[in-house]
């Protein structure tokens, strides 16, 4: 597939350089290559469709820069719009509120919530906060143990929940306990659930009402395919999320889900997970993500030099 794509791009970029304006005709191949690249990167079909139409509209009539072919210039325009679409600045956690505040992690099964809870504790501590971890997953076998071990490794206090307790009660009692322990920021680790699971989505809504978290982060796997739009839309509609953590970015996934999620919810991607270690959390960089999704590293370097 990648070979087919670069072959295609090469032929696109063989067109004559410079001179004249971008026209319907001289950008067609470039647009087609971009469309393929985005779909291959798992950007949602409808998002791609909208993007390609926007880009076409914006490109038409532009003067072709001296050193670029029309195809290259299209890629340049795409890269710029993707970067802009994903947000220009890095947004951190929202922690503004009466202490102790709560940050809530939600998402599908296995997306990386519990690990991210530990990573956020590391980050919070670095920022001079006193984090308090709250295991509110009573369903998955040993989920509570997992967060307790993570907290133990870090020396961060963890609420002593048990699977017999109710998740809403766990969170409420944890807030009292955190306050007593002199902690200012709760990190709520919730059970993985499907976005179509009415009962469990209702549970999240009840935790939200009870705790009023200052930030709710959807933890989504960077390898997610076309379903990312449905997942993000459902969690956002139900909970009005504050942002997204894109986990497992240390692999070779192109991460088109980032673009799908961003364009369907308008919510910022705040962090990326880049490994299993608790220090493996990084700020999100829209420009890096854009070129990763486009997967045209060589072309982009060439264009930047132009």
């Amino acid at each position, binding site marked *: *597939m990648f070979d087919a794509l670069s072959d295609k791009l090469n032929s696109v970029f063989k067109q004559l350089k410079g001179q004249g304006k971008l026209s319907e005709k001289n950008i067609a191949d470039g647009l087609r290559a971009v469309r393929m690249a985005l779909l291959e990167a798992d950007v949602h*079909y409808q998002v791609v469709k909208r993007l390609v139409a926007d880009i076409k509209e914006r490109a038409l009539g532009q003067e072709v820069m001296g050193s670029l072919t029309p195809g290259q210039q299209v890629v340049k325009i795409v890269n710029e719009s993707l970067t802009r679409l994903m947000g220009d600045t890095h947004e951190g956690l929202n922690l503004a509120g009466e202490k102790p505040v709560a940050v809530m992690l939600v998402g*599908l099964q296995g997306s990386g919530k519990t690990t991210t809870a530990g990573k956020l504790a590391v980050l919070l501590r670095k920022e001079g906060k006193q984090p308090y971890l709250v295991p509110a997953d009573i369903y998955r076998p040993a989920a509570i*143990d997992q967060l307790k071990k993570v907290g133990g490794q870090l020396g961060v206090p963890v609420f002593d929940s048990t699977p017999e307790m109710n998740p809403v009660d766990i969170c409420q009692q944890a807030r009292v306990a955190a306050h007593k322990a002199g902690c200012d920021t709760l990190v709520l680790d919730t059970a993985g659930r499907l*976005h179509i699971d009415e009962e469990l989505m209702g549970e999240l809504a009840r935790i939200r009402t009870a705790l009023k978290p200052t930030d709710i982060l959807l933890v989504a796997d960077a390898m997610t395919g076309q379903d990312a739009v449905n997942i993000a839309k459902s969690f956002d509609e139900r909970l009005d999320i504050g942002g997204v953590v894109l986990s497992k970015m240390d692999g070779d996934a192109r991460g088109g889900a980032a673009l799908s999620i961003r364009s369907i919810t308008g919510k910022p991607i705040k962090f990326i997970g880049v490994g299993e270690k608790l220090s493996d959390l990084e700020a999100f960089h829209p420009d890096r993500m854009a070129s990763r999704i486009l997967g045209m590293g060589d072309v982009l370097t060439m264009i930047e030099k132009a």
Partner: protein
Amino acid sequence: SKTRRILTTDIDELFLGKKIVDDDMIEDLEELLITSDMGVQTTMDIMERISGKRSRIAGAGELKRVLKEEILAYFDALPEPVPEAAAKPHVVMVVGVNGVGKTTTIGKLAAHESKKGRKVLIAAADTFRAAAIEQISIWAERAGAEIVRHKDNADPAAVAYDGIEAAISRGADTVYVDTAGRLHTKVNLMEEIKKIQRTLSKRLPDAPHEVLLVLDATTGQNALSQAKMFNEALGITGIALTKLDGTAKGGIVVSICSELNIPLKYIGVGEGVEDLQPFDPKQFVEALF
């Protein structure tokens, strides 16, 4: 919106008020295939074949039939899955990237085997992830299976070796080896899992009899890269596709199975012990449309 519509509709609706396959319909079909994670190349291949037959397709029923046939063909001529009781002990190593459902799938499989009266042993060879051993221990108990476990951070190959050793001495019928999730791109972790495999065959020459790759249906095109690299490292004998109880279709398995010539054995449809089914291509294709 269009997105909603296409996901909740089927081909009948595409044909509403139309008698022939027109360009709009072809585009809608393309969307249907892409949004089920079938991938650009496979979608283009299928579309091309459908387009060729376009004039002969009259009506929704016929289009559906042709489409299903086209996709089913990808599952044709795959090797037969490894039979479950060919050797004693029958050793199954379960592998895959992080969080796809390896441990849960072992729990379900073990329960199923136990129920049939077979003696099952699980080797808890994920010694890395926090509380992975506790998690698989709970599943072993649920399943009525025995477990061999070491301490956190112990050598996973040593756990695997002890597992197979215990299985032989206790006369177990089946051994499942739970391994830590790892991204296929991490060279040292892939070396580690190769070592687990080598260790198993050192104790029992034909083992592992099955290397089961677990894929998450929510995953998009990256699943192909996962399958290729795990297959290169270990020689995958079967695939389990989990989390099909959501809205993701898992269409990428179509090209994975045919390209790598590996059978899809099981599908996961929930978190409960009963939520595992043998893969049925016809049912899978039905669920796509």
